[in-house]
């Protein structure tokens, strides 16, 4: 166990110190601040595009443009970007070391290959968690500091759901937890591909391409795609949004979370299987 903790510590330091890890943090902070600035300047105009269709019938009273809405919009905007940032780091956890040759030294430690792989995978998850914490701080807390707290007008393709401000914190907590589970799928996929492939770029590009293709399939309303959609992990990655419906579809959220967990276990299982049998020649 002490060996495992030592490897994990080492892997965490390595992951955090890599320049590409900081790119993720910078991108998150930049996107959040950029969107907050844009909404601060033009928020009312942007919101009028949403509220315009019932402007002639209703007066909407209350502060629509508040921190909760900005956080909701930022999270929606980052549906595609966040997994890419995770893939950028986790996609070469093994393959990067294989390409550079340092994997041989790493495997000379008394800990077995499985422990080394799990330590690397966990360090990837820790990085993902840090990214999400940073996102939470910027998207939720900074937005609330700038725009104030208020009811959330959650937009979905079926219309609007107004979530009261005093009923929202638990939803955010669970939403970030599901977001972590979703990004863990990407981290696990990246780790798996990193074990299979020997150069550091191919797994990253493969993960990114997979996410982009799956997301595009999810966006189109076509009968052919409707058959495939339930089997794509990207479909379940956005189940955090369901927490902002009234009533909350608990059953579908549990199903989505279970499918995401199944993906994590499968990807990690395949990764361990490959890594244990991998012929290290570099």
């Amino acid at each position, binding site marked *: 166990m002490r060996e495992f903790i030592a490897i994990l510590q080492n892997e965490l330091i390595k992951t955090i110190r890599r320049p590409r890890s900081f790119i993720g943090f910078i991108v998150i902070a930049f996107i959040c601040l950029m969107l907050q600035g844009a909404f601060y300047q033009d928020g009312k105009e942007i919101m009028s595009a*949403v509220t315009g269709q019932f402007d002639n*019938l209703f007066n909407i009273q209350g502060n629509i443009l508040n921190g909760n809405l900005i956080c909701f919009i930022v999270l929606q905007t980052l549906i595609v970007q966040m997994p890419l940032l995770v893939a950028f780091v986790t996609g070469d956890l093994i393959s990067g070391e294989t390409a550079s040759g340092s994997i041989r030294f790493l495997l000379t430690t008394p800990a077995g290959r499985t422990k080394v792989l799990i330590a690397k995978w966990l360090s990837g998850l820790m990085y993902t968690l840090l990214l999400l914490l940073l996102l939470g701080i910027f998207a939720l807390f900074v937005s609330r500091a700038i725009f104030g707290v208020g009811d959330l*007008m959650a*937009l*979905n*393709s*079926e*219309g609007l759901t*107004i979530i009261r401000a005093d009923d929202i914190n638990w939803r955010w907590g669970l939403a970030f937890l599901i977001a972590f589970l979703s990004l863990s799928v990407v981290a696990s996929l990246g780790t798996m591909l990193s074990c299979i492939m020997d150069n550091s770029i191919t797994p990253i590009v493969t993960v990114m391409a997979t996410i982009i293709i799956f997301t595009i399939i999810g966006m189109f*309303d076509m009968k052919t795609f409707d058959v495939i959609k339930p089997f794509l992990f990207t479909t379940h990655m956005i189940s955090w949004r369901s927490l902002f419906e009234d009533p909350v579809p608990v059953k579908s959220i549990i199903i989505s979370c279970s499918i995401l967990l199944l993906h994590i276990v499968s990807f990690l299982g395949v990764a361990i299987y490959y890594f244990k049998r991998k012929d290290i020649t570099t």
Partner: protein
Amino acid sequence: MKQFLLIVLSFFCLHVSATDDPKMLIRELNKKFRAVQDYTARVRMEFDIPGVKMNTMNGKVFFKRPDRFRIRTKGIFFLPKQNPMQNMSSMLLDTNSYTSIISGYEVVNNKRCAIVNIIPLTSSNELILGKFWIDVKDPKVYKTQITTRNNGTIDTESFYSTNSSVNLPDKVVIMIETKKIRMSKMMSADIGRKSQDKAKLDEVETGTITLSFSGYKINTRFPDSELERNED
């Protein structure tokens, strides 16, 4: 006997003319409106708007004549642009701006009501036609149908009990015909979910907003700042 019949007939004619005269009904109604300079009350709002899911809300309502109306509460809520609680009294009080006729009679909430149509005298008026169901015995507005140039038609139904003498309802149900709110998948970033059937989106549905009032405080002369202040 002839004299008796004449007296009865003339009395009957007088009664009929009173309930047939929309101006008289409006005059009686306006007396009640004039008695209320301002009021505050607790309000409970229930929403059933197509495409909008919103919980019931509680708040406080402030009104000052002629048409300053404000509901103060924490959070987001929808109110119709043509809010009858705000502008019904001011609409009827300006008797020089419209002509009125009775188009029929109808029983509403067990009350025999005259349907008084209000037609503005100028074509530039925002109001196109106002229909008011007014109790002929004790003039109170039980139903309205207001058609305006920009905001379509809004129906309301009022229920009275404790403050009926000053024409303040305990419950107002506002009915608005509206199409279901549509949100594109791109706008809502709701990937993975099927878009709504376009034909269904074009269907006109009736949305209702129910305002239940309690704890009326009438003519307390509250300061104007209460109408401006936000709920903490």
